[in-house]
C-alpha cells in the first residue's frame, strides 16, 4: 500500500442501480434502432427476399418429408421460416458487433466502459439490448410471413420467445467476441465471408439435415457441430410449442461460453489493452 489511502468505504451497487443501468442501455439501443430506419428495412428485406424468391424457386426442387416438429407435409417456405428468423438474429448479432467496433473507433464505447458498474454486467446489458432489437425484427418478419401462409399455431408466437432470446444472446455474444478481435471497421467484410455465410449455409436453415447427410456425410457432421444449426432447430421446435432438448443444451452451452469469452476479451487488463490506443494518438 504505497501512496494510495482510502477515503470512503466502498458502498457497492444496489439492485436498483443495476436495473436502471440495464433499462437505460436497452432504451438507448432501442432509440438508436428507431433512428436507423434503413437498418430496420434491410433487416426485414433480407429474409423476405429469401422467403418470396428463393423459397418459391426451390419449392419444386426440394421435397420435404414429414419430420418433427411438423405433423404434415409442409411447403418449403414453412420449412425455411425458422432458419430465416435465426438469420435475422445472426445478422443483427454481427451488426451489433460491427457497431461496437464503430463505437470503439469513434469513442462512444468509452462512455459505456467508464460506467462504474462491473464491466461484465455492462456487456451483458449491451447483449440483452441487441437481442431485444432482434426480437422486434423477428416479430415484424413473422407478421409479414403470416400473410404468406406461414401460420404456426398462435401459442407458437409465445413459446418461440424464450428460444429467440436465447439464440439472440448466443449470436450476439459471438458477435461481441468477434468484435473484440477486429482492429478496424474495414475488417468487417471478412466477418461476412468467414462467419455469416458459412454459419448460415452449413446449417439446417435451408435444408433438413437428413438431405445433407444423403449428399455429403462430412458436411452433415459440420452442420451438426454448427451452433447456428441448433439455434435454428431450437426456434423451429419452439415455434410449434415443442422443445428440442439437444439444441437447447447446445445453444445454452454456447451462449455461456461465448459470453464468458467476450467479457474476458473486453477485460481492460487483457483484450483491449493489447491493441494500442483506440481512437486518437497515444
Amino acid at each position, binding site marked *: 500500500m504505497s501512496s494510495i489511502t482510502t*477515503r470512503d468505504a466502498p458502498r457497492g451497487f444496489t439492485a436498483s442501480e443495476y436495473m436502471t443501468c440495464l433499462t437505460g442501455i436497452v432504451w438507448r439501443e432501442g432509440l438508436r434502432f428507431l433512428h436507423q430506419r434503413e437498418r430496420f428495412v434491410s433487416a426485414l428485406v433480407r429474409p423476405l427476399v429469401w422467403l418470396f424468391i428463393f423459397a418459391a424457386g426451390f419449392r419444386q426442387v426440394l421435397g420435404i418429408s414429414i419430420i418433427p416438429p411438423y405433423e404434415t407435409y409442409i411447403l418449403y417456405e414453412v420449412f425455411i421460416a425458422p432458419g430465416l428468423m435465426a438469420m435475422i438474429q445472426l445478422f443483427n448479432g454481427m451488426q451489433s458487433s460491427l457497431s461496437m467496433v464503430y463505437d470503439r473507433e469513434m*469513442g462512444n464505447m468509452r462512455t459505456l466502459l467508464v460506467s462504474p458498474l462491473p464491466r461484465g454486467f455492462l456487456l451483458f446489458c449491451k447483449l440483452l439490448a441487441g437481442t431485444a432489437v432482434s426480437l422486434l425484427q423477428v416479430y415484424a418478419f413473422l407478421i409479414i410471413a403470416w400473410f404468406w401462409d406461414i401460420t404456426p399455431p398462435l401459442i407458437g408466437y409465445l413459446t418461440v420467445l424464450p428460444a429467440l432470446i436465447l439464440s439472440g444472446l448466443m449470436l450476439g455474444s459471438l458477435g461481441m467476441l468477434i468484435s473484440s478481435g477486429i482492429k478496424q471497421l474495414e475488417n468487417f467484410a471478412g466477418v461476412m465471408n468467414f462467419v455469416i455465410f458459412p454459419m448460415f449455409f452449413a446449417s439446417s436453415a435451408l435444408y433438413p439435415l437428413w438431405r445433407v447427410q444423403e449428399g455429403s456425410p462430412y458436411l452433415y457432421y459440420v452442420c451438426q457441430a454448427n451452433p447456428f444449426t441448433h439455434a435454428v432447430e431450437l426456434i423451429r421446435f419452439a415455434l410449434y410449442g415443442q422443445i428440442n432438448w439437444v439444441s437447447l443444451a447446445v445453444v445454452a452451452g454456447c451462449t455461456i461460453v461465448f459470453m464468458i469469452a467476450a467479457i474476458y476479451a473486453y477485460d481492460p487488463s487483457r483484450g483491449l489493452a493489447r491493441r494500442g490506443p483506440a481512437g486518437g494518438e497515444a
Partner: protein
Amino acid sequence: MTSPAPMAAPQPTPQPDPAAVPALSIDGVSHSYGPRRALMDVSFNVRPASFTALLGLNGAGKSTLFSLITRLFGIQTGRIGIFGHDISRSPGEALRLLGVVFQPRTLDLDLSLTQNLLYHAALHGIIRREAAARSAELLARIGLADRAASKVRDLSGGQMRRLEIARALLHRPRLLLLDEPTVGLDVKARADIISHVRQLVTEQGIGVLWATHLFDEIMASDDLVVLHQGKVLAQGPMNRVITEAGAQDVNTAFMRLTGAQVMPGGGA
C-alpha cells in the same frame, strides 16, 4: 521533480487526513504497446479543488494515460488511485468519483441532448426522475436548456463540448478529466469552456486534470505536469516549474525541458 508539500503528503496512516488524499494519484505508471514504450514511470498527483494542466506534445502519452485512468486499458505497472480508491482493485468506487471528457466526441448524434444525458445517468445507476431533474439543471447552466429536445447533430462544436462537460458532471464526480477539450473550437468557444471548467474548480471544489498542448490555456495559479515522450519532465505549481527551468514563461520553460521547437501562436 519533487512534489509540493500537499501533493506529496499522503502516508499510509490508519486515519488519513481527508484533505491529504489526492483527487488523483498516479504512482510509478509505465505502459508499453508491444515494444513501444508509451509511458515510463509516470508519477504525479492532482489535488482536490485544483486545476492541473497536463502539458505535452501530441504523442507524449497523454491519451494513453487517460485510457489507463479510465480503465480502458489495464495497468501494466504502477498504481492509479482516485480519492484513494485503487482503480484496479475497486474500479466501481473509483469510476463513480470520476467524470471524463474524451478527446474524440462521444455523443450519440441522432439522440437529443436530454436523451444523451439520461443515457449517461442510467449508466451510473441514477434513477430516471433524478436524472431528468439533474439534466434540466445542467442544460440550463450551460445555456442549452432551449435545445434540450434537439438532436445533438444540430449543435456547434463548442456546444457539443459544453454538453459533454455537463454529461461528465451528471453523476457529481469530484475529479474531472479533460483530454484536449478545446481542439477544433473557435476562440470564443475555447474561452467559454476554459472559464466554465475553472469555475467548477473554485465553486464546486472539483479536481481537474486538463490535458493540453496549448500554453495559453494554463494560468499562473495552476499546477503543471510536463509530459514528454512518456516521461514526466517537471511538475508542481506553474511558477516553480518555470523558475526551476530557468525560464521567464511557460513556452520557454517547456522548450528548455523538452528541447522541442515551439510553434508560433502559443502551441507546442
